[in-house]
């Protein structure tokens, strides 16, 4: 208990802030169990202690894993795809996929670690809905999606007309170094 709490006039008896300590979601055990089940079936790695079942997939296997999740486990809805940047990590980026299954009413999160300058295959053959999300990750983080039919910047596409077909090398956004601390 911190000094602040001990001598406070405010009757607060809860824990002091747990910053720098890992976050443990309330339903982590349940999610980990479901994640382990999925990870074993798909033979991929799992990240524990998350608020959703979380799988860590290599970029070579991501399309196969997505297809298996869609066809065999009914994760039919593509909810979200985005990049997270950890500049101090060896593999700098995480590409995070979040899928939802209407039948099972459950969610799953996939993370693809990616080094700087690396690209990963597009998920468009499996989920049409990830089209713009991939373009956004490309615009914001410079992550290339191989095989994407129209990998132009979005939403910062206004500098070019919609019909221009700039080559990826000229339209790729610059990657800026960040100074923020990273979590892992």
């Amino acid at each position, binding site marked *: 208990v911190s000094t602040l709490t001990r*001598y*406070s006039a405010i009757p607060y008896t809860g824990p002091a802030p747990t910053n720098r300590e890992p976050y443990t*979601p309330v339903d982590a055990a349940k999610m980990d169990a479901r994640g382990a089940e999925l990870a074993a079936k798909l033979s991929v790695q799992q990240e524990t202690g998350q608020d959703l079942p979380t799988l860590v997939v290599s970029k070579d296997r991501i399309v196969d894993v997505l297809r298996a999740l869609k066809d065999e486990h009914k994760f039919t*809805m593509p909810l979200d795809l985005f990049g997270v940047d950890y500049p101090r990590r060896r593999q700098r980026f995480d590409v995070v996929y979040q899928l939802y299954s209407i039948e099972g009413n459950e969610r799953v999160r996939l993370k693809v670690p990616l080094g700087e300058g690396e690209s990963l295959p597009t998920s468009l053959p499996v989920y049409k809905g990830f089209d713009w999300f991939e373009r956004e990750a490309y615009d914001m983080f410079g992550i290339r999606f191989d095989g994407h039919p129209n990998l132009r910047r979005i*939403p*910062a596409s206004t500098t070019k007309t*919609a019909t221009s077909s700039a080559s990826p090398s000229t339209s790729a956004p610059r990657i800026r170094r960040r100074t923020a601390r990273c*979590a892992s």
Partner: protein
Amino acid sequence: VTLDGETIIGAEQEIGYLHRCFEKSCETHTYQQAIPFTDRLNYCSAIINNVGYCMAVEKLLGIEAPPRAQHVRLMLSEFMRIADHLVCIGTNLVDMGALTNFWYLFQPREEIYGLIEACCGARLLPSYLRIGGLAVDVPADFLEKSQRLVNMMPKFIDDVDKLVSRNKIFLDRVVGVAPISAEDAIDFGFTGPCLRACGVPYDVRKASPYLGYETYDWDVPIAEGGDTYARYLVRMEEMRQSLRILQQAIDRGLPPGPVMVDNPYVALPPISKVYNEMESLIYHFKLIMHGIQPPVGETYFQVEGGNGELGFYIVSDGTKNPYRVRCRPPCFAIYRAFARMITGQTIPDAIAALGSLNIIAGELDH
């Protein structure tokens, strides 16, 4: 669009004119300071965005807003959902030349903003919520004001219903226009009214209830066909269902108690204590200077926004600034399918369809 006579044979959307770096801006601000940015995502239903963001941070902190704050959050969310649908249907009908309905629908919307103004002084972009509760308590006559709104609202909705729903001119413009199948809608990541118009009864409030939605008696409206008319019908019915929730919420009454959590690491102490007690002054200083510092980790929280699933993914590195904030805007997935939906239709169809998708540029472009 590419035209062949009057038929659209190809189309492409261009977005980004309202891109304001929402996600990046959050990284240089504290958790509380990011709340006004969330208002500007879907500015037609700003409080729902506040709820989504605040509850995501609260999930990360492992705290829960007090019952009174949760009750107000739920009521204002439903009012905002109605306001969102009123704007959507109103402007959609104006685009099709039915100006009268616009006035019928914008009057209750104005009254809803009056209620929000009574709560916190701001109207369109209230930033009324705080992490851990509400900025200030609601006025004493909050429930009476709400009851008056709930009583007057059905009249306006019914008026429009009578004018429009079986109107031959309207039906010619919307029935069978820009349809999308349920499979396609799911594959494109549709959520909200646009998905329910395809007959898929997915609603975040039912699928993963928050704020106690599971304790209310209400239904998820769906329609068949996935065309512009189906989207109109779903929105009309959703407003009635929201009114049902609101009536129950008013009948239950506001729970007594504070509207902010009792946690000095999250909530600012009352000003009288800051001026008169050393400890409270220190808490105040620590919160203003060092902010809320959640534990290291990441979390995702989703709410049902006006247009569909609105999710916030937050990565914390234990400092006062979020390491990464990701907003999952429902419009982004929905608008992607627009070109496909209008191909084979005509230009007036495209206008009717665009209005029915309720594209909010603030949310679409972050």
